[in-house]
C-alpha cells in the first residue's frame, strides 16, 4: 500500500502531475467572488463560509479523474488488480495520495484565503478544523466516482454529476461549522457530524470502489 501511495505522490509532483492545480483553482474562486458580489464587508463575510466550502469542493473535483483513469488507460490497473495488494488497499492508498496532493494544501491555505472573503477571525480555526475533517471524505467519495467511471472516455463530466450529490452532507455540516464559528456560537454539533460522515465514508467506500473497479476491469 505504501508503494502505491508513494508512486502516486511522486507522479503528482512530476511534470504534468497537476499538484497545486486544485489550490490555484481555490485561490481563483476566492478572488473572483469579491469581484462579483462587491468587496463591501458585510455581505461577503456572511456568505464566506459557504463560498469557502463550495470552492474547496470544486477544487477537489478537478483532479478526481486522475485517480484511476490514467492507470486504466496505460494498463497499470490490470496489473494492480493481479498484484498481491487487494483492490480495497489500492483504493485507500490512491485516495490518500489524492488527499495529500489536493485536500491538504487546501486545508493549509484556507485561513489565508479566508481573509480575501472577509471571513471573521474567530471562524478561521473552525474553517481549518472543518476542512481538515471533511476533505478526506471528498477524496474518498471521489475515488468511488472515479472507480465507477474508469472505463468511460471523457468521463470527467459524468464523474462530476455522480460525485457532487454525494458531497452534499459534507458541504452542509462543513459550512455550518464555519458559520457557527463566525457567529461566535459553539460549532461542536456540526463538527461531530462532519467527522462522523468522514469516518463512515473512509470505512465503507474502499469496498464499494473496489467492487466497481472489478466490474469495470472485465
Amino acid at each position: 500500500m505504501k508503494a502505491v501511495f508513494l508512486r502516486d505522490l511522486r507522479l503528482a509532483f512530476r511534470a504534468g502531475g497537476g499538484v497545486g492545480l486544485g489550490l490555484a483553482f481555490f485561490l481563483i474562486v476566492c478572488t473572483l467572488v469579491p469581484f462579483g458580489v462587491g468587496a463591501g464587508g458585510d455581505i461577503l463575510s456572511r456568505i464566506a463560509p459557504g463560498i469557502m466550502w463550495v470552492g474547496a469542493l470544486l477544487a477537489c473535483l478537478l483532479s478526481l479523474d486522475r485517480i484511476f483513469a490514467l492507470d486504466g488507460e496505460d494498463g497499470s490497473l490490470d496489473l494492480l488488480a493481479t498484484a498481491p495488494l487487494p483492490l480495497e488497499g489500492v483504493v485507500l492508498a490512491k485516495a490518500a495520495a489524492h488527499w495529500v496532493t489536493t485536500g491538504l494544501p487546501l486545508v493549509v491555505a484556507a485561513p489565508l484565503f479566508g481573509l480575501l472573503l472577509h471571513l471573521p477571525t474567530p471562524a478561521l480555526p473552525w474553517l481549518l478544523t472543518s476542512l481538515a475533517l471533511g476533505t478526506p471524505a471528498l477524496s474518498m467519495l471521489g475515488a468511488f466516482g472515479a472507480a465507477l467511471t474508469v472505463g468511460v472516455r471523457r468521463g470527467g463530466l459524468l464523474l462530476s454529476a455522480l460525485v457532487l450529490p454525494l458531497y452534499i452532507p459534507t458541504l452542509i455540516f462543513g459550512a455550518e461549522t464555519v458559520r457557527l464559528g463566525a457567529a461566535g456560537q459553539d460549532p461542536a454539533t456540526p463538527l461531530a457530524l462532519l467527522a462522523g460522515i468522514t469516518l463512515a465514508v473512509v470505512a465503507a467506500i474502499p469496498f464499494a470502489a473496489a467492487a466497481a473497479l472489478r466490474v469495470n476491469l472485465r
Partner: protein
Amino acid sequence: MAPLLTVTMLAVARGGRRAVEGVSFQLDPGAALILRGPNGIGKTTLLRTVAGLQDPVEGRIDLVPDSVAYAGHADGLKGALTVAENLAFWAQLFGAGRAQVDAALRALDLGDLADRPAAMLSAGQRRRLGLARLLVTGRPLWVLDEPTVSLDAASVLLFASAVRAHLACGGAALIATHVDLGLPEAAVLDLTPYRADPARPAGRAPASFDEAFG
C-alpha cells in the same frame, strides 16, 4: 510434481458473447504453452480469465492463489517515472528487493536506460521494460498476451532466454502469440477448433448486483 495450472472445459465470454469453449489443458512446472488462433477468437479473453481479471462462464481454472504474473497489451508504465523507478514500484508491490530489480534490468538489456524517463523510450524498449516487470514479481506462472509486439530480432532472443530461465527455475508460461517466439520446446494449442457456437447464450444472466462481489 503438481501442475501450476489446470484448465478444465473452460468457456469464456467477451461482451456477453461466448468466445471459446471446452478448452482444457494443463501446465506443469517447467512447461510453456503457446496459444494460437485467428484474431478475435478469444485468446486475450482466455488469458484475462486465467489471470483472474474476469470470471469463467463454464469450467474450472485450478491454480495456486497469487501465482499469476500477467502482462497484457499495455505495459502499465508511467512516462514521468524513470525505467528504474517504474520497475522498483512493481518490485516493492510484489515484495522484491533492489537486487531483483538490477537483475531484471540486466536480463532485458535495460541497464543503460535505467535513469531515462519511460516516456522517452521507444515502443520496443517500453515492451522490454514491461517484460522485465515479470521478473520482479517472483510469480511462477507467467500469462503473456502478445509479448513480442514491437520487439526486434535481438530482443525476441532476449525474451526467449528470459522465458527459458524462468522455466528452468520451475516456472511456467502461457503465451498467446501469432509469431515465432524462438521457443521450439513449447507446446502449441490452436484455439480454432474450440470456437464457441455464437447462437449459444453466454451463460449466466449478466448484471446481477452480486456479480461485483464474486
